[in-house]
C-alpha cells in the first residue's frame, strides 16, 4: 500500500516561521492527557493499579516470595512473581524478560508485581510482599582495572576500536603531547514526566489485542519489541503516546516496567492496568548514562597541528544486557591527524541496565576531547579557536568522504564575534571581579545527521482544501506535532491550518523513534514523500477521501558524503575565590544544522541542550553505592539538575543555510547537539578563570579550594 517516492526540495512558506505550538493550549490548560491520565473517553474503564516490588540485593536467587499478607490487604487483587507470572514466548532480552526466573541480576530489579483496586492499596501491598534471597557476591563498581571487556560493537552499531597509522611513534615524535584522563559521572535522564504505562487485553475479530498507552519516544518500537516476547504478531499490539513529558532517550526503548504492565494486564483480561513509575524507581529501571573514563593522548607539532589522536574509553554496562556507549565516536571524525586510535572497553557489572541519554557517545566523549584540546592550546600557546582552525580536516577523517556541509569554523567565527572573544586575555587567572575569578572557554559541538529507515506517512483529502496527514511518530515535547504540520502544509502547498495531523499510534503508518536527533528528518521526509506522491496521483483538487501512503527514497548522493552537524559553544565562568562556588553568567551556542523549521521550537531544543550540558558540567551525578549496588541519590533533591538561578544569560543561534541533499526540507537534526561540548566549554572557562584544570564532571565548588 505504501510506495517509495523520490522527493524534491520543498518550497518553504510555513517552514522557517514561528508557528505557535499547535498543542500549546491543550498542554498549558491541562487538557492534553499524559499516559497515566487516560480515562473512560479513551477506553480505560475501571482500571486496576500496579506497583513494582524491587530486589533489595544486587545478585542472587529469589528463594521465596511470601505474598500472604499482601494478598490479605484490602484492595489487593493479585501478586505475581517469577513462579506465577505469565510465561514469555521469547526471553533473550534480559532487561525485559522479567519474572521468568528467580535470578536477581541487579538491585532494584522487578521481583514481584502487586495489582490492586487503588494505587495506595497496590503500594501498601508491595510493601507487604516479603522476598527472601540466596545472596551472591556482586560487583558494582567501575574501575580502571575491571573495565577490560571488549564489546563486539558500540551503540548503535559502530566499530568498537579504530586504528590508523602509528599513534605511538607519532606521539614519541611529537613536539607537544597532552596525555590525560577525563571522567564523566553517572547521569540519569530524569524527564519531567516519570515513565508510565496503561495496558489492557481484549479481542478483536477473534484475535488477542494488547492495547497500551505508554510514555514512549516511539510507539512502533515498543510494539515490535513486546510482540514477539508475548507471542503476538506486531499488529496485535497497539501502542499510543499522544503526549509525552520528555524522555531524553530514557523512553526510546521499552523498559522492564512496560513489560510488567503488559504481563499484569494479561492476568486480568479485560481490565486495564495502570502503572506510574516513581521518581525513585526511575533510578533503577528506566536507563541512565554510564560513567566514563577517557584516556586521551594528543601529539602535535609546536604549531598545534595534530599528528596523533588517541582516545581509549573505559565505561560500564550491565552484565544482564549489554549497552556500550560510543564515547570515542566523535573523536574519530572531529579533527585532522594522520595517526589515530580509539577503543572502548567495558566493565560488565551487576547493576541496572544503562541506555540512551541525550547525545550518547558525543556528550561524554566530546567533554574529554574538547578539554584535551584546550589543554593542547595552552601547551602550544595558541588561542583555542586558532587551534581548531589549524586542525580542520579536508575530508571526514573517519570515512574519508567529503563532509556534506562542515561549517564548524563559521560557527566559531560567528560565536567569537557575538561573545566578544577577541578581548579575551591569553593567560589563565588573569581577571578578577571582586571576589570572583572570571574566565571564558570554548568547545566544539558535533552530532551526526541521521535519517532512519522504516518511515511512511499518509495523506488523505478531506475536501474543501483540508488534508488529514498521519504518521505514527511521537512528539515528546519537542514540538514535532507543530513542525510536522508545517512540513505537511508546505509540501502540499496549503496553510498549516488546513492540516489535520494524527501521530503517536501504531495503527498509523510506521515511524522511527524520537531519538538520535533523527525524528524530524526521518518523519518529515516521509511526510514530504507522501504529499508529493499524493499531488502526483491526485492533483491539486483531489476528491474527498482519496489518499496516498508513501515513504521517502534515499537520495543517491547520500552515500558519498559524511553528514554531520556542527556548533561552537562559548562560556563565561566565575569561580568564587573564597568558597569555590561556580557561576556561568553567559553561555552561547552557535549551530550549523541545516534549515531550522521552526525558530521557536528549535531555540527551545538548543537552549534545553545547553542547559542540560551546563547541568552535566556542574551538577549532575548519580552516586552508586557499590556495596549495595544501587544509586543512593534517587530523587531530585539529591540528584541536582540546574535550577533557574543557575541559568543566566544563555542563548543559541544558527547559521542561515539549507541542506537539501540530506532532506527535502533542508533540515538536519537539532535535538542533541546542544548538550555536546557544553560541559567542556564550561570546564575550559573555569580553567581560564582560575588556572586550575578540572578533568572530571561535575565540577563542584570543592575543586577550587586551594588551602
Amino acid at each position, binding site marked *: 500500500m505504501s510506495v517509495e517516492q523520490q522527493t524534491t526540495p520543498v518550497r518553504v512558506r510555513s517552514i522557517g516561521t514561528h508557528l505557535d505550538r499547535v498543542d500549546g493550549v491543550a498542554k498549558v490548560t491541562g487538557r492534553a492527557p499524559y499516559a497515566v491520565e487516560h480515562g473512560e473517553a479513551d477506553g480505560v474503564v475501571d482500571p486496576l493499579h500496579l506497583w513494582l516490588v524491587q530486589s533489595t540485593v544486587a545478585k542472587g536467587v529469589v528463594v521465596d516470595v511470601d505474598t500472604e499478607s499482601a494478598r490479605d490487604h484490602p484492595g489487593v487483587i493479585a501478586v505475581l512473581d517469577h513462579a506465577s507470572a505469565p510465561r514469555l514466548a521469547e526471553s533473550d532480552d534480559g532487561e525485559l524478560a522479567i519474572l521468568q526466573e528467580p535470578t536477581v541480576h541487579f538491585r532494584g530489579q522487578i521481583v514481584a508485581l502487586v495489582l490492586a483496586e487503588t494505587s495506595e492499596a497496590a503500594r501498601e501491598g508491595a510493601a507487604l510482599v516479603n522476598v527472601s534471597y540466596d545472596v551472591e557476591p556482586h560487583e558494582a563498581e567501575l574501575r580502571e582495572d575491571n573495565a577490560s571487556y571488549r564489546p563486539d560493537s558500540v551503540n548503535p552499531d559502530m566499530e568498537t576500536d579504530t586504528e590508523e597509522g602509528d599513534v605511538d611513534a607519532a606521539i614519541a615524535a611529537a613536539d607537544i603531547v597532552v596525555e590525560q584522563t577525563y571522567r564523566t559521572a553517572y547521569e540519569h535522564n530524569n524527564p519531567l514526566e516519570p515513565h508510565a504505562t496503561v495496558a489492557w487485553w481484549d479481542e478483536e475479530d477473534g484475535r488477542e489485542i494488547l492495547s497500551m498507552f505508554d510514555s514512549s519516544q516511539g510507539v512502533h518500537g515498543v510494539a515490535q519489541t513486546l510482540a514477539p516476547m508475548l507471542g503476538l504478531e506486531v499488529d496485535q499490539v497497539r501502542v499510543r503516546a499522544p503526549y509525552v513529558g520528555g524522555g531524553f532517550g530514557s523512553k526510546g526503548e521499552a523498559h522492564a516496567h512496560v513489560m510488567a504492565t503488559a504481563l499484569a494486564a494479561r492476568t486480568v483480561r479485560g481490565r486495564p492496568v495502570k502503572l506510574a513509575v516513581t521518581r525513585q524507581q526511575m533510578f533503577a529501571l528506566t536507563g541512565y548514562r554510564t560513567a566514563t573514563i577517557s584516556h586521551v593522548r594528543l601529539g602535535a607539532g609546536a604549531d598545534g597541528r595534530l599528528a596523533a589522536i588517541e582516545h581509549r574509553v573505559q565505561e560500564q554496562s550491565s552484565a544482564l544486557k549489554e549497552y556500550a556507549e560510543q564515547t570515542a565516536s566523535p573523536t574519530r571524525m572531529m579533527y585532522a591527524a594522520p595517526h589515530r586510535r580509539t577503543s572502548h572497553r567495558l566493565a560488565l557489572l551487576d547493576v541496572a541496565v544503562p541506555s540512551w541519554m541525550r547525545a550518547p557517545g558525543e556528550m561524554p566523549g566530546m567533554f574529554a576531547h574538547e578539554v584535551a584540546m584546550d589543554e593542547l592550546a595552552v601547551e602550544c600557546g595558541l588561542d583555542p579557536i586558532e587551534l581548531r582552525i589549524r586542525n580542520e580536516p579536508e575530508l571526514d577523517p573517519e570515512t574519508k568522504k567529503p563532509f556534506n556541509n562542515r561549517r564548524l569554523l563559521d560557527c566559531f567565527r560567528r560565536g567569537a564575534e557575538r561573545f566578544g572573544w577577541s578581548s579575551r586575555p591569553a593567560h589563565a587567572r588573569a581577571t578578577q571581579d571582586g571576589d570572583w575569578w572570571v574566565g571564558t572557554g570554548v568547545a566544539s559541538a558535533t552530532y551526526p545527521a541521521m535519517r532512519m529507515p522504516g518511515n511512511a506517512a499518509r495523506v488523505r483529502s478531506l475536501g474543501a482544501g483540508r488534508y488529514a496527514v498521519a504518521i505514527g511518530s511521537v512528539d515528546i515535547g519537542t514540538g514535532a506535532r507543530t513542525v510536522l504540520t508545517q512540513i505537511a502544509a508546505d509540501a502540499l502547498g496549503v496553510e498549516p491550518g488546513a492540516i489535520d495531523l494524527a501521530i503517536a499510534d501504531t495503527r498509523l503508518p510506521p515511524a522511527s523513534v524520537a531519538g538520535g536527533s533523527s525524528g524530524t528528518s526521518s518523519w518529515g521526509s516521509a511526510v514530504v514523500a507522501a504529499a508529493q506522491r499524493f499531488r502526483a496521483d491526485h492533483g491539486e483538487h483531489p476528491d474527498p477521501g482519496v489518499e496516498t501512503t508513501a515513504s521517502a527514497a534515499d537520495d543517491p548522493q547520500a552515500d558519498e558524503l559524511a553528514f554531520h552537524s556542527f556548533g561552537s559553544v562559548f562560556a563565561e565562568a566565575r569561580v568564587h575565590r573564597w*568558597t569555590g562556588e561556580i557561576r556561568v553568567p553567559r553561555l552561547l551556542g552557535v549551530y550549523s544544522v541545516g534549515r531550522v523549521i521552526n525558530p521557536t521550537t528549535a531555540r527551545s531544543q538548543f537552549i534545553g541542550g545547553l542547559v542540560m550540558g551546563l547541568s552535566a558540567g556542574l551538577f549532575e551525578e548519580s552516586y552508586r553505592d557499590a556495596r*549495595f549496588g544501587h544509586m543512593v541519590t*534517587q530523587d531530585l533533591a539529591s540528584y541536582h539538575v540546574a535550577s533557574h538561578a543557575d541559568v543566566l544569560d544563555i542563548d543559541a543561534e544558527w547559521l542561515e543555510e539549507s541542506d537539501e541533499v540530506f532532506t527535502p526540507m533542508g533540515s538536519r537534526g537539532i535535538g542533541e547537539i546542544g548538550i555536546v561540548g557544553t560541559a567542556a566549554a564550561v570546564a575550559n572557562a573555569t580553567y581560564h578563570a582560575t588556572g586550575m584544570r578540572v578533568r572530571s564532571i561535575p565540577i563542584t*565548588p570543592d575543586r577550587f579550594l586551594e588551602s
Partner: protein
Amino acid sequence: MRTLEYLRPATPADAVRAVAEHPGARYLGGGTNLVDHLKLGIAAPELLVDVSRLPLDEVETYDDGSGAGLRVGANVRNSDLAAHPLVRSELPLVARALLAGASGQIRNQATTGGNLLQRTRCVYFQDPTTPCNKREPGSGCSAIEGYGRYNAILGASPDCVATHPSDLAVALVALDTTVVVLGADGERRVPLEELHRLPADDPSRDTRLAPEDLVTAVEIPLAGATKLSTYRKVRDRASYAFALVSVAAALHLTEGIVTDVRIAWGGVAHVPWRARRAEAALIGHALTEQAIREAVGDELRHAETSEQNAYKPPMLRRTTAHTLLQLAAQSREESR
C-alpha cells in the same frame, strides 16, 4: 492502603494532650518534611495532630527584663518570617538564612517549628532498603563508608554521621535563640543550642524534646551585634540545594577590635553548630584573615573527615573568613 487518623486540635493544650495520650502520634506542621517521610515509608504515625492551624502565627516584640527580643510563633511560615520588616531590618541573617533554604513554594508552606525539627537529608535515612541507625536503631550506619559528601565532620559518632539540614536553625543558634515548649507539665523555655543533640549511641533522637513537646514559639534576643550579621551558604547549585557548609555570623567591632562575635555553622554536625571556641579566640583581637583561620582551626581541632567530605574544613575556614571580613568591611563603611 495504610490508614491513619487526623486530628485538628482547638488549642495547644489539646494538641499536647492528644499526642501524650497516643504513642503513635506526630505533630504535623506544613508537612513538607513529614509527608515526604510518610510517602517514603520512613515514618508511619497512626495519628497526625495538625498544629498548623493553631493561633501560633504572630511575630511580636517582647521585653522580658533582660532585654528586647522578637517572639516568632511556631506557625509563622518561612516566607512570611523572611519578609517581616523587623526581621529584615534587625535580624538580616535570619531573613537570608530562610531565603537560602528550599524553594519559594516550600517556604510558603513550611513553618518555623517544623523547620527547626526537620530531619536529616542523609540519603540512607531516606532509603528504607539500606541500614540506618537513625531510622532503624541497631541496623548500622551506611553513610560512614558510603556516600559521604554531606556527612558531619564535628560531633559525629560511630553510629551516625548525619547532618542537620536546617538553615534557619543555624542563624537562630548564632543569636542565642530560646525555644518555647509546651509539654505535658506546662510551658518551659529551652535554649536552641540545647534543643538538638549529637547522635552518640542513639541517633534515632534528633532533639531533647519528648514526643508530646509542642514548640509554640521561638524568642530571638535583639542584642547589639545582631544588626551587623549575615548568612552565607555554600552549595553545589545557586538555589534549591542543601548546604555543603554554611556560616551564620554577627559581628561588633570597637575601634577595629572584636567586642562581640557570633559564629554558627551548618552542614557540619548533627546539630546547628555554634562555634563558641572560635568566637572566644577572636574576642579582643583585631579581625585578620590569619586570626580567623586560627580560630576556625581551633574549633575544628576534633574534626574528623573522610575522603568525600575532606573539603569541608578548608571550605569552612575560607567561608568563615570571607563572611567575617565582609562584615568587618561593612562595619568600617558604616562607622565612616
